[in-house]
């Protein structure tokens, strides 16, 4: 998933360019704290940005930079950092935090101040981080976040007493509700009372550290809150041997059915508005090649991809709700056994699961995996997970070739089942590949699996809406760059070379010739040259094929969606349609993914290997499927 600023990572250009850091020479303020304590929520509050936040440890894996206003005249540069349990880094995301704190980042100076964010409900344990952070000697504000939660569960703490014992100002806060933000501004403006600095003990072993923090908390009136009863109750169902997997299945079925049912009227609305606006533009312009380019290439091509926006947003709404509630960490626990069987660790599950949204942020989130070999193995299999760019392709082909019949009562039909099958296929391919990798080139010692289960929280509507908004922006940005460019190029290739001043028949055009050129290679799967053109164009991005086929079959503004479906039915049959679906399930047709794998693994070796492996897998499986179904 890539909302917030991390959405830029969905675009190849920003995958290589690092942003200008601290342009105005402001004071640097770093946000530090254990994972899942609300650092990014604070960051968003203070900067007005929308960094991704969710309810599981390890959401933030990179540093993020923003500007926060202190008062009318002053601003500071705020750095949001991945969560750490201690200042000794174990994984790559923790290394980032370590490097920033010690001024080892090449493009970033040592921070001038620190906001140490701790979860007030786990204060006795989280205070362990206070000693090493405060002894860095950088002015620090200790923020006890989620104080509303602490209060509700009958806990309490005396912030002033703690401040005296720590020798640093302490405030209670609830970032979600915005309380405590004013105190942070006061700290930054240096108007907050500063207790006398004291030397904190340097403790090297964990038990004495924990004893120190426990005594400190107890001495500051810390009252351990009651356990989160609701979480315990829910977990009794979610992790139950029977109800657990059953409820998981129900959630999945509901997601897939609603992708079809709820999305349909919305998609029709988008379709109609694109058609109407296309026709309107056509009437405004004289008959000319540029009118055709605009109406057929841009409106028809890009428009046919944009139609799928509602469907993608519905998928993201579900994913966001699952992430914010805290269910994701439980899903990782449920799936851990399977992951262990294929040789991956439970931590690989979260990247794989977010691969259902988009492979790029999923690949970034592998930074939480400490073991290097496990990390590369996870990166290599992640693009096999069914990302949302495949959704338009699947929907188009399923709608054209799979008759809609109820399966499990009227609520779950054949089309949703086929879609679910393709998603499962992607997961099976990823798991099998992981197994293969782990038993050959990535053999490694078993690494301990550890995940902290956060209490459940009700997903907040505003948080989900913001993420949908960000997702829509990413989608439209892709449509207006990669997809637009490919569609214009394709339209041009489809209308050249001019014969006696007019565009040739599609078959004789450059695009047609290109398709003809690869036709022998794809004929075994039952594809003809038109599908070939679609396949070539989809190397840029998977969903481009929808636009390409729209253009090739001459689908214009005046025809409805059924036009493309009927045209497809003439050129493909059931067997070749399934072959095409399988090809898209496996092939790595995404330039952005290749770029991000190259950056994260720091070599061309892995993305090339991955591209070839997935290509061969796609080709062979698609061919086998065609033979079997013919």
């Amino acid at each position, binding site marked *: 998933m890539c909302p917030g600023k991390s959405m830029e990572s969905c675009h190849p250009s920003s995958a290589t360019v690092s942003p200008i850091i601290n342009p105005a020479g402001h004071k640097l303020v770093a946000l530090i704290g254990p994972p899942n304590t609300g650092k990014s929520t604070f960051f968003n509050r203070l900067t007005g940005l929308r960094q991704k936040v969710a309810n599981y440890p390890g959401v933030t894996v990179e540093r993020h930079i923003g500007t926060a206003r202190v008062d009318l005249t002053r601003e500071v540069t705020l750095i949001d950092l991945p969560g750490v349990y201690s200042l000794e880094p174990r994984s790559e995301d923790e290394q980032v935090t370590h490097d920033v704190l010690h001024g080892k980042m090449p493009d970033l100076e040592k921070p001038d101040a620190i906001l140490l964010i701790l979860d007030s409900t786990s204060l006795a344990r989280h205070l362990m981080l206070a000693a090493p952070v405060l002894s860095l000697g950088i002015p620090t504000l200790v923020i006890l976040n989620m104080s509303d939660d602490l209060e509700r569960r009958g806990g309490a703490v005396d912030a002033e007493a703690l401040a005296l014992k720590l020798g640093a100002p302490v405030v209670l806060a609830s970032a979600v509700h915005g309380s405590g933000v004013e105190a942070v501004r006061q700290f930054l403006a240096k108007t907050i009372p500063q207790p006398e600095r004291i030397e904190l003990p340097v403790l090297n072993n*964990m038990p004495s550290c924990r004893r120190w923090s426990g005594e400190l908390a107890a001495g500051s009136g810390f009252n351990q809150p009651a356990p989160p009863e609701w979480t315990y109750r829910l*977990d*009794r169902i979610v992790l139950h041997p029977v109800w657990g997997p059953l409820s998981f299945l129900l959630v999945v079925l509901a997601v897939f059915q609603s992708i079809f049912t709820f999305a349909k009227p919305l998609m029709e609305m988008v379709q109609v508005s694109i058609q109407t606006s296309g026709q309107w533009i056509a009437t405004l312009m004289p008959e000319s090649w540029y009118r055709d380019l605009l109406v057929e290439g841009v409106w028809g091509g890009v428009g046919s991809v944009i139609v799928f926006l509602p469907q993608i947003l519905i998928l993201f709404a579900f994913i966001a709700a699952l992430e914010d509630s805290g269910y994701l960490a439980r899903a990782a626990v449920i799936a*851990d056994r399977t992951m262990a069987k294929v040789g991956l660790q439970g931590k690989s599950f979260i990247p794989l699961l977010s691969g259902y949204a988009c492979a790029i942020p999923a690949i970034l989130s592998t930074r939480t995996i400490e073991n290097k070999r496990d990390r590369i193995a996870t990166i290599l299999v992640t693009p096999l997970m069914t990302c949302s760019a495949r959704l338009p392709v699947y929907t188009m082909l399923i709608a054209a070739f799979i008759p809609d019949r109820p399966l499990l009562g009227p609520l779950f039909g054949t089309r949703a089942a086929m879609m679910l099958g393709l998603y499962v296929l992607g997961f099976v391919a990823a798991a099998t590949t992981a197994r293969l990798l782990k038993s050959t080139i990535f053999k490694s010692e*078993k690494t301990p*699996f*550890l995940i902290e289960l956060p209490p459940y929280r009700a997903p907040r509507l505003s948080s989900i809406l913001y993420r949908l908004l960000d997702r829509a922006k990413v989608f439209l940005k892709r449509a207006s760059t990669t997809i637009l460019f490919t569609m214009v190029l394709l339209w041009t290739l489809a209308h050249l070379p001019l014969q006696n001043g007019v565009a040739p028949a599609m078959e004789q055009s450059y695009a047609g010739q290109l398709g003809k050129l690869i036709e022998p290679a794809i004929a075994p799967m039952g594809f003809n040259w038109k599908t070939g053109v679609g396949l070539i164009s989809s190397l840029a991005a998977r969903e481009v094929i929808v636009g390409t086929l729209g253009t090739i079959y001459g689908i214009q503004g005046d025809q409805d969606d059924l036009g493309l479906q009927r045209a497809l039915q003439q050129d493909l049959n059931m067997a070749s349609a399934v072959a095409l679906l399988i090809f898209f399930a496996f092939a790595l047709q995404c330039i952005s993914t290749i770029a991000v794998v190259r950056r994260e693994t720091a070599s061309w070796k892995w993305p090339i290997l991955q591209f070839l492996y997935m290509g061969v897998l796609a080709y062979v499986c698609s061919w086998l499927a065609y033979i079997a179904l013919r």
Partner: protein
Amino acid sequence: MQMGMIPGCIVEAAHVAPAGDPTVYRVDGTEIALRRETTLNITVLDVPR
């Protein structure tokens, strides 16, 4: 250890994943999931409730 599993702490097994592994333990006011192979390195003594 940084999550609170330190020598001398009290651990309570809360849930076992549907597949039989991992197990969710309550330690120091939080819940941590651990695989069986990892817990083999930990010695546990029975504590009366």
